[in-house]
């Protein structure tokens, strides 16, 4: 093995039934380096980590670790730990009701007799040497999340790890805590530990990392030195576009007139999941929230619909002040919301297609005004035909439909309520190309008929094709708004990456 290299992974392949999660991926980690692993959802980051830590068995490829002659065969997380690969996950996997020292040494004693006094002394030394503000005999749950995270790291470091994997370590930390964690990471780096840093916060990558490896659709895009990869190029690589061939795709564009009156206006709207933001949409307008995964786009529209706990903000519907704190309020004000996670938040799996279609309208009408069976059947027939939903019958449980057809049923559910404002969060995720195009066309047709629509998609092309205004988010903040000639892939990526901010 070359000098200075602690880990090489070569030609790693891993397939799951129906998906190639990793295809011939290489990864190299050097001593004393912080190496960011980047990629959008489904790029293969977590699969690669799980292969490395022995959670999954690789189908092909080789892994070599410094200090182990030959290929390393990792069959379990236990084995990975023994040869020096430690992982700290996003959710803290320590025991909150034990002390810091107990957490650091639990499961590591050789015999049955444990010398806690000794351990406490050693724990204090380690904590001190790493500058972690915690005492060994303190109960872990009394430490802040960041300190708990650091204790997990200290535990990993003390097990003589050569490779430390930090999987989304910062997602539940505030800015000060992040700074503290980064200091610890730099200290470890100085001690020669190789750190793999998985995150979706772009700015954090540029704050601490030395190198970046980008994955996309299970394949390696490339390995780059941070200084030589501007943010905007990183975004382009993650999304699979090279800046040069960002030829403008033909936009179908909006044909219908957009009215001057706002259908929905929010000022400083905030929820338990998102920071205050301003937003408005006009009659017949299609706009969209864009940004990378975790940028806060879904959280923002959830706040509009009252899906999370609304914590503040003023809302106007057609100019009149309104109060929307729960989904029912939003529905009464003519707002519909197709959620991002269809399985978890959308479908009522065991109920029939018909019941799933009439559900929202039924709730708006109220419990005491049930939709008659005959009417429900007529509604279901109408929308099954209009959206070409492929189902054996309207009595079929929705769970036995394909993903695309389930999505159409949920879409039908909201169209049936004739909303004036419809929010579609990732309506085309995980469905086939044909259905995607159908949904895009439908969105534009509805807007022509005067409906206002907010459209969210991970696929930029799709958004450019349908939206006349894009709100760009990064790290849970709105960082720009693009309209007209600015609606190009290059401009969107620049804004996401923070190169140019059009307005704030």
């Amino acid at each position: 093995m070359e000098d200075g290299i602690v880990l090489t992974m070569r030609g790693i392949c891993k397939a799951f039934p129906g998906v190639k999660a990793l295809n011939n991926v290489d990864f190299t980690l050097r001593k004393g380096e912080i190496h960011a692993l980047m990629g959008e959802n489904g790029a293969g980051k977590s699969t690669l980590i799980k292969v490395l830590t022995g959670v999954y068995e690789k189908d092909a490829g080789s892994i070599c670790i410094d200090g182990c002659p030959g290929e390393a065969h990792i069959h379990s997380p236990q084995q990975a730990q023994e040869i020096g690969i430690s992982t700290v996950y996003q959710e803290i996997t320590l025991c909150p009701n034990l002390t810091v020292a107990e957490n650091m040494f639990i499961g590591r004693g050789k015999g049955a007799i444990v010398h806690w006094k000794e351990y406490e002394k050693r724990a204090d030394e380690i904590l001190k040497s790493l500058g972690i503000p915690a005492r060994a005999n303190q109960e872990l749950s009394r430490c802040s999340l960041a300190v708990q995270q650091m204790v997990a790291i200290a535990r990993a470091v003390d097990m003589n790890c050569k490779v430390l994997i930090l999987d989304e370590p910062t997602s539940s930390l505030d800015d000060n805590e992040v700074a503290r964690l980064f200091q610890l990471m730099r200290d470890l780096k100085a001690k020669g530990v190789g750190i793999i840093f998985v995150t979706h916060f772009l700015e954090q990558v540029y704050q601490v990392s030395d190198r970046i490896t980008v994955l996309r659709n299970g394949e390696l895009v490339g390995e780059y030195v941070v200084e030589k990869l501007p943010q905007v190029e990183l975004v382009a690589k993650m999304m699979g576009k090279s800046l040069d061939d960002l030829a403008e795709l033909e936009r179908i564009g909006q044909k219908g007139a957009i009215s001057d009156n706002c259908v929905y206006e929010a000022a400083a709207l905030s929820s338990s999941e998102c920071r205050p933001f301003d937003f408005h949409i006009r009659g017949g307008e299609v706009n969209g929230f864009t940004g990378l995964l975790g940028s806060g786009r879904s959280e923002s529209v959830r706040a509009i619909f009252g899906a999370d706990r609304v914590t503040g903000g003023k809302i106007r519907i057609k100019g009149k002040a309104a109060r929307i704190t729960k989904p029912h309020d939003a529905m009464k004000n003519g707002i519909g919301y197709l959620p991002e996670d269809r399985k978890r938040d959308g479908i009522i799996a065991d109920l029939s297609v018909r019941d799933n279609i009439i559900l929202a309208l039924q709730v708006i009408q109220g419990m005491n005004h049930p939709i008659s069976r005959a009417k429900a059947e007529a509604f279901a027939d109408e929308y099954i035909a209009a959206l070409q939903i492929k189902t054996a019958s309207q009595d079929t449980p929705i769970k036995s439909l394909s993903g695309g057809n389930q999505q159409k049923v949920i879409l039908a559910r909201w169209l049936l309520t004739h909303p004036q404002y419809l929010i579609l969060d990732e309506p085309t995720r995980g469905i086939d190309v044909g259905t995607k195009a159908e949904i895009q066309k439908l969105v534009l047709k509805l807007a022509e008929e005067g409906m206002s629509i907010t459209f969210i998609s991970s696929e930029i092309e799709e958004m450019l094709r349908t939206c006349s205004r894009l709100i760009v988010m990064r790290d849970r903040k709105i960082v720009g708004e693009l309209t007209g000639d600015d609606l190009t892939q290059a401009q969107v990526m620049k804004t996401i990456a923070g190169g140019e901010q059009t307005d704030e």
Partner: protein
Amino acid sequence: MSKKKNGSSGLGQLLIPLIALGILVLFNLFRDISFFSITMRVNNSGNIVLAGNLISIIDNASELAIIAMGMTLVTAACGGQDISVGAVAAISGAVLVKVLQGMGGITPVSLLLGFLAATLVTILFKLFNGTLVAVFRIQPMIATLILFSCGRSIAYWINGDATPQLYAPIIDSIGKTIPGIPIPTPIFAVLLMGLLLILLFRFTSLRLYTQSVGINQGAARLNGINPTTVKLISFVILGVCVSIAALLGVCRMHQLNHKNLLVDIEMDAILAVAIGGNSLGGGKFKLIGSILGAYIIQMLTTTLYAMNVNPVNIKAYKAIVIILIVVAGSPVIKRGLTALWKKLRTNKAQTEGVN
């Protein structure tokens, strides 16, 4: 075609309980055909009434059937069961008797007032359970364990250690038969409760709401349904069921015994829901399944008595049969049977093709 498909899938859930009932009937036919004989006879009060095993099965299962209906709704909405129904029934009976005593005699009016008061109190106790489950998100089994353990003590505080005896024509009319009508009154109570619920489902969308909350609470909320309200409603309905069952139980025994009134009925009610093919994890439900379940349990008991099985052993025999029914309705067996059925059909289709 689509309608037909619906029919068969609807029957799917009831298949196992219907088969179980069929086997019980066949077994009794071969064992002793006189098991099914129904006669007219004059009872102690001088009324002409129908008598026979079938009548007594349907009659004696009434309290269980009524409580099973309420239990079905709670199960569907909350994905858990209320194990305090028997204990709260004792409270309900105690309130009823206290009101009767307070009003100085048993008249139709005092009985009606007593029943209304008892129902109100029962609903309040059920709302206590419901609040723990729906608002504080406590596991239903744990939340209802509280009243399960202390309910009969509360009944004791209301009425003391006495077992008040109740004798009046109106008590007989409710617990046994109304003069001139040969069919036991509790059977009508089951019909009435069933009818009330059917009307409730017909004129409100409670069924859709309950199933949605039971299947996917999060999605239901995002469609504007308030899961807490839906769960509380299911507990209120269970409260009404428990109160009616307590009234029947008290009138049937002519007395209130807080230790024995509807004792152990919670487990039988849960069992009835399960035998009826309803998922104890909540979601879709069929009331008729639970009612069938109640009658199956009662028929089993009566059959065993008719076979002169020692009462001490009856529970053990019952357990064996119930294991068989529950395993037959389990997902593993169901999947196996479906696969077998498909295989048989494709085989048949193939041989037909060859011919």
